[in-house]
């Protein structure tokens, strides 16, 4: 035992300390989404990270690429986006592929409604403009690049709509879909409109 230990030590010395140290280093990968986005990517209100389970792969890819390319999460008032962007900055194309596969393995379970004080009937009227792209049941439409809204965490939808309205999201010149949303969100007029339309989306299911 002692002999083999000595032999091993000598071997390390031959190779030089650096290599020996490298081999002992703790490995990591890029599958860290669930720390923020919750178990099986079902979202976590505690850190305001939305649900990923059930998110369309093409939409997820576009957002990861937007974050990686500084097209999203750069406005100083976009608190959640600012938290997300550095997570995506160092992702390789392979890591993004892997994350999309991983997210696809999670079961979709619609989020619980949490917001209060909205008027779904008024929201329904406001939703007409949204339905053109996002679909009557808020099920999303890939050909128009519009993600599903039904089943998403309502607090997240509210934050994002506010961000679009205030120009915290969608202002980057290369964010074409974001620019569309910035135009469309004005039909909701104000925060009450946002709450109402999200209350209505809460009544829809995919």
């Amino acid at each position, binding site marked *: 035992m002692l002999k083999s230990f000595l032999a091993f030590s000598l071997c390390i010395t031959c190779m030089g300390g650096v290599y020996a140290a490298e081999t002992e280093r703790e490995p*990591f990968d890029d599958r860290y989404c669930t720390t923020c986005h919750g178990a099986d990517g*079902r979202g976590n*209100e*505690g*850190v305001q990270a939305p649900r990923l389970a059930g998110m369309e792969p093409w939409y997820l890819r576009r957002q990861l690429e937007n974050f990686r390319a500084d097209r999203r999460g750069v406005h100083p008032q976009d608190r959640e986006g600012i938290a997300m962007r*550095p997570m*995506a900055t160092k992702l390789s194309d392979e890591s993004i592929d892997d994350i999309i596969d991983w997210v696809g393995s999670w079961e979709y379970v619609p989020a619980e409604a949490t917001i209060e004080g909205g008027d779904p009937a008024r929201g329904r009227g406001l939703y007409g403009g949204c339905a053109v792209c996002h679909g009557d049941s808020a099920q999303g439409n890939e050909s128009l690049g519009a993600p599903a809204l039904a089943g998403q965490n309502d607090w997240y939808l509210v934050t994002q709509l506010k961000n679009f309205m205030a120009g915290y999201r969608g202002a980057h010149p290369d964010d074409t879909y974001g620019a569309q949303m910035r135009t469309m969100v004005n039909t909701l007029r104000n925060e009450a409109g946002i709450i109402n339309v999200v209350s209505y989306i809460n009544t829809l299911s995919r």
Partner: protein
Amino acid sequence: MSKQVTRREFLNLLSAAGGTAAALKAGSALGLLPHTAQAASMDLLAAGAANRKVAILGAGISGLTVAYELSKVGYECTILESSHRPGGRIFTVRHGDLIDEIGNRHYCEFDDEPHMYFNAGAARIPSTHRNLLAYCKELNIDLEIFINENKTSYVQDPALLGGKPIRNIDYTTHSRGFLAELLAKSLNAGEMDQPFTDQEAETLMGMVRSFGSLDEDDLYKGSFRAGYAAGGFLEHGVQKDIIAFRDLLQTQMGRQLLSANEGDTGPILLQAVGGMDKITEGFTKHVGHQIRYRSMVNSVEVKEDGVDISYDQDGSRHLLQADFCFNCIPSHLMTGISNNFPSQYVDALKYIRRGNAYKAAFQAKERFWEKDDIYGGISWMNNPSNQIWYPSSGIHKEKGILLAAYDFGDGSFHTAMTHEERIEAHLSDGEKIHPNYRNQVEKPITVAWHRMNHMLGCSARWQRNPSGWTHEEEELYRALQQPVNGRHYMIGDQVSMHSAWQESAVMSAQWAMTDMDRRLRA
């Protein structure tokens, strides 16, 4: 707008002080004040044939405390730890260690020597944290003095003397002198017939003179307390120049400097020799085999007679069934894990805000501060890096590890930066005190707790309002402290009224175990 204090108001203040003294006596008689006591050792009933399986979620110090104590009396404990290491926010960084900050993962490149470590999380143990200290004693953890305040360290503020760093002792000696002079003038300005007796008035004046090092005319004209400009040993000492009171008043830092020796950071503070994670090691020597690393909890279901926990490890899902569960997963992460907790419990979890403490460290190529009469302690800067800590250990060795920045209150400024931007910020801030800093340090690490994997915060913030706990906040806190069905306990410093201290985590664990034990005895 300034407001003059009238003599009447001043005397009212003094008489209010007399009232406090009276209240102290009364409080002591009623047993309201803490009296000296040893840490209570746990007196737990030995585990029976049933109710002996315990799941512990998180290998932070509260979870380890539970594992250690319950194992002693025969419980079968399993600890699920989501990260690759034990200790949680007890995180000592050494050569080769992974700093698992999401978006800023890096390895520590410090030289591989015992004194070359950095306590990126817990770093100080107040001597009154007796429960933690009792474990240190029981687990044979070597402790040494942690130097917090150092009178030769620096104070630097662009508003003070054009940004020229001054020694802490210059700031405090002169400030005290001028404060004492003002106080002495107020006291001498009128009759001292009330509220004090002649004897009390004389004692008070003596204290004031001594506090400020006043001369026989009750004036402050500088003091050797600030050290010597020259001489002082083989030759007569030459007094340093006074810094004018008006100049001292240009900085707000006096609030920090004049209270540095009070409260949690008052002397004596201790640290574990070789790094704070020696405490973690003390526990894991006994219960380390119970830890399943890289095990992320997916759901917690409290049942009538136990708790079911599903978790992911090695790419597959596992089920852990236990009779009791002690859970120190941070509240803001627990809200993202499926559970069947009662609504008030969930409300409490959601209510707690996560702190965003930030720390950074450099390896110093030489211990340049020791050449500047500094041994341990903190230099304070009025800039975002805020503090430089000189190591209390490794004195007179070649190199050392410096804390380059510590923002406990709001670390978001540096958190939002890239690793490289943070380092440049600390170099640029630090060289305002140590002009050659940039060339004297290397091998930086930065730790934004708000983004540390499996943690995402440091530490729990219950109070929305600095003035104190609201009734509603206290109700939520009490609700979270109580077990669900007598089976599931939230623990950790987050379930205390004094977060960010190891002692709070230990006491929270002890409270929960005592409660479980009481229920089993009933």
